[in-house]
């Protein structure tokens, strides 16, 4: 397994070199791929590793983005504080929503979360005087260091890399293993003395925090926020990214989100019925590759080892 860190390092070098070759638009897309990958990976902590039906993850993405954008535009506080405030707001919201939802399980959990999330969405959508309502906020002023496309890209790359490393460590930690145990058999986990609800709540807060980090990165890249970021359809899209790549692998959601973002950017321009195309691909994946693309590759080429990290 010595090859894997080397491969990741190589990937990192390639990603770091990208803005030197790519024109601005493609650099922007590369950054979107990175932060969407982080978003999907953070969701996967809850749904893939925790088995918690986190149906409305986009709310934390949206709150992270709005928190950052509002701090940068409406307060006089230093900018780095704004970049941290978004994710912290998302984590706080995740804690509150988690406390309310965590007593329920599966579909009931998911629907209560969608309801709470829609509450947040509707408030943002209608509160014109504060959040800009359905127009959102545009032209958020950023510190000079990260205001250029290149600067924003490197900031995104560094933050995404650190966040993914942190998530990886969490998944590999005893906490992550306990979470997987809860997913596979909550009753037995409780019987051996695991505090099931506390572990799930912790997973939700961590997932919400990193979802918020992805949201604040979006503000840095796009300098705008809008309520569609936290509409429930986007949450399902993020779920689809996890499924497409493979929910039971760490890097699956990254693969899935890259596929989806790249297809959307470069293919949807050329075909008139993008949703039809996407729907057919998804149907085929769900029926024939229930473990996702990466899950399939892992199973196909490494039958002995089972799961990829």
């Amino acid at each position, binding site marked *: 397994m010595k090859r894997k860190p080397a491969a990741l390092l190589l990937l990192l070098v390639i990603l770091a070199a990208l803005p030197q070759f790519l024109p601005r638009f493609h650099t922007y897309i590369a950054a979107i791929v990175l932060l969407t990958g982080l978003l999907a990976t953070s969701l996967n902590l809850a*749904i893939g590793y925790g088995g918690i*039906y986190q149906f409305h993850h986009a709310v934390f993405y949206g709150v992270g983005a709005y928190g950052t954008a509002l701090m940068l535009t409406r307060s006089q506080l230093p900018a780095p504080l704004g970049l941290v405030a978004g994710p912290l707001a998302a984590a706080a919201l995740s804690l509150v929503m988690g406390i*309310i939802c965590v*007593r*329920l399980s*599966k*579909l*009931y959990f998911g*629907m*209560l979360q*969608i*309801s*709470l999330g*829609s*509450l947040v969405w*509707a*408030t943002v*959508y*209608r*509160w*014109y005087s504060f959040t800009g309502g359905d127009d959102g906020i545009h032209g958020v002023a950023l510190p000079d260091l990260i205001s250029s496309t290149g600067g924003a890209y490197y900031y995104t790359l560094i933050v995404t890399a650190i966040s993914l490393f942190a998530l990886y460590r969490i998944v590999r930690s005893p906490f992550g293993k306990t979470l997987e145990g809860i997913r596979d058999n909550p009753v037995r986990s409780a019987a051996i003395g695991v505090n099931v609800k506390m572990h799930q709540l912790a997973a939700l807060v961590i997932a919400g925090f990193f979802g918020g980090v992805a949201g604040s990165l979006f503000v840095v890249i796009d300098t705008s926020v809008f309520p569609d970021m936290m509409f*429930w*359809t986007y949450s*399902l899209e993020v*779920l*689809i990214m996890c*499924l497409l790549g493979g929910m039971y692998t760490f890097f699956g959601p990254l693969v899935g989100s890259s596929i989806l973002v790249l297809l959307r950017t470069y293919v949807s321009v050329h075909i008139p*019925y*993008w*949703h*039809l195309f*996407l*729907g*057919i691909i*998804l*149907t085929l994946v*769900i*029926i024939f590759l*229930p473990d996702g693309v990466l899950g399939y590759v892992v199973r196909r080429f490494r039958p002995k080892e089972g799961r990829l990290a």
Partner: protein
Amino acid sequence: MGLPENLFSAGTLSQILVGLSRTTILFIVSSGLSLILGVLRIPNIAHGSLYMIGAFSAYSVISFLGGGGFAFWAAMVIAPLIVAAIGFVLERGFFSYLYEREHLMLLLLTFSFALIIGDLVKIFWGTEFRSITVPGFIQGSAEIFGLPIPYYNLFLLLVGPFIAVFLWIVINQTKIGKIARAAAVDSEMVSAVGINVGWVFAFTFVLGCFLAGLGGALIAPITSISLGMDHSLIMEAFLIVIIGGLGNIWGALLGSLIFGLTQSLGILVWPQFGIVFPYLAVVVVLTFRPKGLLRSAW
């Protein structure tokens, strides 16, 4: 926020009546969803898309038959049947092989169906807004407490309870309804006594789809028929089913009432944030009754 002065007036009453007729549509659609979720355990996101097809089909049937009273009533019957036929194809073609999959997979599968159907509707019907006018004899409106309430809304108020009683009879009094309820609890046991569960599931799914189509056809005259009408409805229908109790028809009715009334009264009380109230109601209900208000079929 300050309550408007005319809160307890005829205006409020007419708002409630209009809210109730929307409740009827919510009930019809969500009772279908509830059946499918309660018996087949499919969280069918495509249900909203079927509702949209119902509305567009009603439009097409009416323009094909050239309008008038007969065309209108024919559309109210044919459009749901078209949707039911689509449901039959979906059930036999896909879902009958996938009942064992977990909820999450089925949710995402039906979401991809919703994406596909959305674009197919765009291909067949285009992107323009369509509308249907109600036939002559139920045009106009009745005066209730000095305010005009359209006859069509009153007609919808009659349809709701009728559908509720019809469904109650099908589920509780007919043989297939009893089998469906038994299959919801333990489908293996039902097939072990020699009943073809597959066909019972198919029947339930088709009935649910028929209701989605009926809801779409019935709402067509009082809304603009457009792409995207599926998205706004399906989440509401889901929440109604969850707060009512999965698979419980009366629960769907109660849930629709809660949702429809908090919606229409919420907008009256606090116009800017009126859309928040139904979601708030769901949160309150699930906080105190985590498994829904009425007993679920599970």
